[in-house]
Structures are given as C-alpha cells and as structure tokens.
C-alpha cells in the first residue's frame, strides 16, 4: 500500500468524522469552557485567590459561589487559579514529552540497526525505573537550585515560578517513553514505503525526508497520543501537589486544593465544597480529554476503529 508523496497529513474526512462524534464535540465544548474560565478568570471576577478574610469555611453563597476555605479565601477564584496552573503544567509538560519523544522515536526508527537497538534498550531500562518516585526526588532537589538561579533575574520576580517550571520539565522528561515507542514504530513502517524511496532516489537530504515526508504522516498518531498525555501529566502533577511536593502555597493547583479539602474532613462537619468543586472541575477536564483522545483516534485512524 503506497501513498503518493503529497498525501495529506490527516486522512480525508477526519474532521467530519470528529464532528459527527457527539461525545468528542461535547468534550471539546467542556474543555473550551474550562480553558476560557481559567484564562479570563482574573479579568472577569475581581476576587484575589490569595486574599484572606475572617470569613472561615463559609458555605457557597452569592458572594462566594464555591464557599470559602480555612483562611477565608474565595474557593471559586482558587479553583480557577488551580485550573490555570494545572492546565499550564499539563499542556507544557505534554509538549515537552512530545518534543523529546518524537525526536527520539524518529531518530531511532530512521537510523535503525544497532543505534535503534541501543536506543530501544535504553527506553526499556527507563521503563523499569519507578519514574514518579524519581520525579518526587528530582523536583525536590532541583527546586531550591533553580530558585537561587532565578533570584538573579528581574529582581527575583521569577522565583515563584520555579516549582511550576521544574514540574513541567520533570513531568515532560518522564512521560516521553511511550511516545518515543509509538513514533519509532510508525517511522519503521513508513521509511520503506515507496514515496520515501522515491524521495531518496531524487537525492533529497535525510532532514528533508524526515520533515517533509515522515513527520506529516506521523502527526495523526502523535496528536492522538498527545491528547492522552495531557490528562496523564495533569494527574501526575496533582498527585505530587496532593503529597505537598508539588505546587506550594499560596499558589494552588487542583491537587493541592483537593489536599486542603481532604485534610478538613471530620465527623462533625463536612466542608464538602472544598472537595466537591475542585474534584468536579478536574474530573470533568480529565474525562473530556480522555473522550476527546478516543474520538480523535477514531477520526484520524479509521483502521483502528472498533
């Protein structure tokens, strides 16, 4: 089955198939709404997520739609700040993993032979290491180092972002393994097809073959997997923040908000709003991303349809 060199990156009708998938469209709508709220939150609602008040543990009301927490902070604005940070870490972490994984996979698959064997053995060894455990150690170690480094720029205004930066980098650095494997498998399948041989016999350089012929054909698979990496990174980040090793107070992410909520559960009073709203928003986001990933796979790769 050979394709002409100018095969479009996506199979024809992919967009139409995606639009017809009601679950995927609903997921996109939910994600769009959450992203909009997160991005426009500070401009729309003038409540400071870090502003404390004497109003402790107030249940949801018109002034505080999601109630207030232990320090009298408005939970609604904190959940929106959490959305900003969680989504930022999720998206950029997935992007880092995409860059590393795609490069690694393309190089390994394209060169082939012994280099491929060595690179894939390395991936297997890395798979065997409990990665999240190393991340916990690494983010703990590198955060103070980066903080001292960042303190030298712009009067230390960047210091607050050190933890986020470390989280993005380290989560991206562990999530690329599966991406590398998938991309390598695709490259192996593609590189001996006739349109690649034709390009090579025309004397095109390796770089040009990779960028013009291989990468466009890889994008479908990569986009699907990228959509599924984002929820994984968001989940990992919230895992770290829940343990108190991720985002540090007063900044909030969904994970740290849930940790705050879980801490004040007691038999006498349940401050359910502290747990319910971050959980609802986070679960909705992850569910929508997973549904969208499934929908994209069906749309972009008709052969895999079940």
């Amino acid at each position: 089955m050979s394709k002409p060199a100018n095969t479009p990156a996506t199979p024809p009708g992919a967009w139409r198939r995606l639009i017809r998938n009601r679950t995927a469209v609903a997921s996109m709508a939910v994600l769009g709404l959450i992203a909009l709220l997160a991005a426009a939150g500070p401009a729309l609602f003038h409540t400071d997520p870090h502003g404390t008040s004497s109003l402790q543990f107030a249940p949801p009301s018109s002034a505080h739609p999601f109630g207030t927490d232990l320090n009298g902070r408005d939970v609604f604005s904190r959940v929106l700040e959490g959305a900003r940070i969680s989504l930022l870490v999720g998206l950029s972490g997935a992007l880092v993993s995409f860059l590393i994984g795609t490069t690694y996979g393309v190089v390994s698959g394209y060169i082939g032979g012994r280099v491929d064997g060595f690179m894939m053995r390395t991936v297997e060894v890395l798979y065997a290491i409990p990665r999240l455990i190393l991340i916990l150690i690494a983010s703990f170690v590198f955060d103070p180092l980066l903080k001292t480094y960042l303190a030298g720029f712009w009067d230390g205004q960047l210091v607050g972002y050190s933890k986020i930066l470390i989280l993005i980098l380290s989560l991206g650095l562990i999530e690329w393994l599966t991406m590398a494997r998938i991309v390598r498998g695709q490259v192996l399948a593609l590189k001996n097809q006739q349109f690649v041989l034709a390009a090579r016999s025309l004397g095109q350089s390796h770089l040009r073959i990779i960028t013009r012929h291989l990468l466009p054909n890889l994008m479908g698979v990569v986009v699907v997997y990228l959509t599924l990496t984002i929820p994984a990174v968001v989940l990992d980040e919230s895992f770290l923040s829940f343990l108190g090793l991720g985002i540090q107070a007063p900044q909030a992410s969904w994970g740290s908000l849930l940790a705050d909520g879980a801490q004040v559960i007691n038999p006498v009073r349940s401050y359910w709003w502290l747990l319910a709203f971050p959980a609802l928003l986070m679960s909705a986001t992850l569910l929508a991303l997973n549904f969208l990933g499934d929908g994209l796979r069906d749309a972009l790769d008709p052969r895999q349809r079940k």
Partner: protein
Amino acid sequence: MLAFLVRRLTGLLVVLWCVITLTFFLVRLAPGGPFSRERKIPPAIEKQLLARYKLDGTLWQQYTDYLGDLLKGDLRLSTKYRDRSVNELIADGLPVSGLLGFTAFLIATGSGIALGCAAAWRQHSFLDRASMLGALTLISVPSFVIGPLLVLVFALRLPWLPVGGWNSPASVILPALTLAGPYTAYIARLTRSSMLEVLSQDFIRTARAKGLTETAVATRHALKIALLPVVSFLGPLAANLLTGSIVVESIFNIPGMGGYFVNSILNRDVFLLSGVVIVYCTLLVGLNLLVDLSYTLLDRRIQVYE
C-alpha cells in the same frame, strides 16, 4: 531458560545500581543536609553526628562505602527515626504496604476481568455501555478524590468502616478499594476489547461448530487467550499500585512504605530514602520478570526467553 533468567537478573542489578547512584547523588545535591536546623549545631557535635551516620569523608568515599554496606545487606541507620535501622523500618512498613497492594491487586484483576467479560459478552447492551462509561469515569477521577469520598460515605455518614489507621482487618477495605479503582476500570476496558477480538476469530467459530455451549467457548477457549494483554499490563499495574499506595497511605494515615518515602524526602533522610527506593525497584523489576514468565503458561506459542 536459564540464560534468560541470568540476563534478566543482571538487568535488575544494573537498574538497581543506576537508581541507587542517582538517588544518592541527587539527594546530596540539594542544599541543606539531614542535620541542618534553624539553630546551628556546634561543629563538634555535627562532626560526631556525621561520623555516626557515616556521612563524613569525600562524597565518592561515602558512595563506595555505602555500596559496600549494601552488598552486606546493611541499609544503615535512619537519620530521622533516631537509632532505628532502615532494615527495621522497612521490615515494619513493607508487610503493611504489601497487604494493601495485594488486596488492591486482587480486587482490580478480579472485578476488572469479570466486568470486561460481562461487557464483551453482551456488546452494545446497556450493561456494556454503563460499565464502560463507569470505567472511563473511574480512570478520570483521581484516587485522592475517591478516597475522601469513600471515607465521607462509609466511615462518617454510615459508621461501618474505620476512617483510617491500621488497627483492625476492616481498615484495609477502604484503602484497597481506593487504590484498586482506576486499575479495575483499566483492566475492564482491556479485557473487553481483547475478548471482543478473540471472540471473532476462527478457532472460536470451530469451537462453536463443535457444539460447545457458549459458556464453555468463553471460559475454556476465549478467556485464556484474551487475558494475554491483561497479563502484560500486570507489570505496569504493579508499578502503579506501588506509587498509588503512597497517596492512599497518606489519605488513610497508614503506617506503610509510602509514608516513609514522603517523609524521607522532606527530612533528607538519605539512607531511608534509598532503602525505600531499592525495595520499590526490586519489587517492580521482579514482578515484571514474573509477568514475562507467566506469558508462556498462558500461550505456549510465546517464547519470551529466547
């Protein structure tokens, strides 16, 4: 077979050595040591402390000494839990985490496979749709949301089970359910799709043509083959149960390995940390080896140890 085992065990040692080295140097890289406090300790006492915990001398010397001690099976003293050796601490914590993980493992595989089979059995039925939607929801809702919710319902509103701790046999139920949740869902999805694929194959038609009952076809012919992808997920499952148990132990206040891990990072307890990481790694790689060996039991055509 023997050559395969030797090769895999060598691989285990290499992974262990990498992780030990990485952990050892990473933790020492971070500013501050296990004895740095707000108030400065007199230099003479600090020197004594460092000597007692074998933290004096050059970093390289400490590292080689530590490797030597490890070969003798000595995991050294914990710097936080004074006068207790890491060996003792792990001997206390490992059975607790082991029981929790094993219970969760039984729940996840047992109910996951049963649900997946049921869904595949009546594809497109209400049962199928409901269980798959439930599965995706369970995957998207993180364990630190499910855990507090279970506590709220089954320990606080309905006083059936203990809130946390590790005092009675009943205290394992809620944590194990929390830990097993997402993996039950994942295994159910995996079993369903693999069962559907197997049921459409020729040898199943042959079995039906022989006049076997549907139950016999499903249990004796299809299930064994359909379980292969599930078995290959058991390795990652073990890893996920290990890291997942860190969060679950912190939610339910369980005295296991997870608590040691988080506290050893926060306290710079070098030897406890690397002791825990060594145990995690050994478990992980050992379980993966078992999984690979069990392939051959399910399908004689597969020879992993070539």
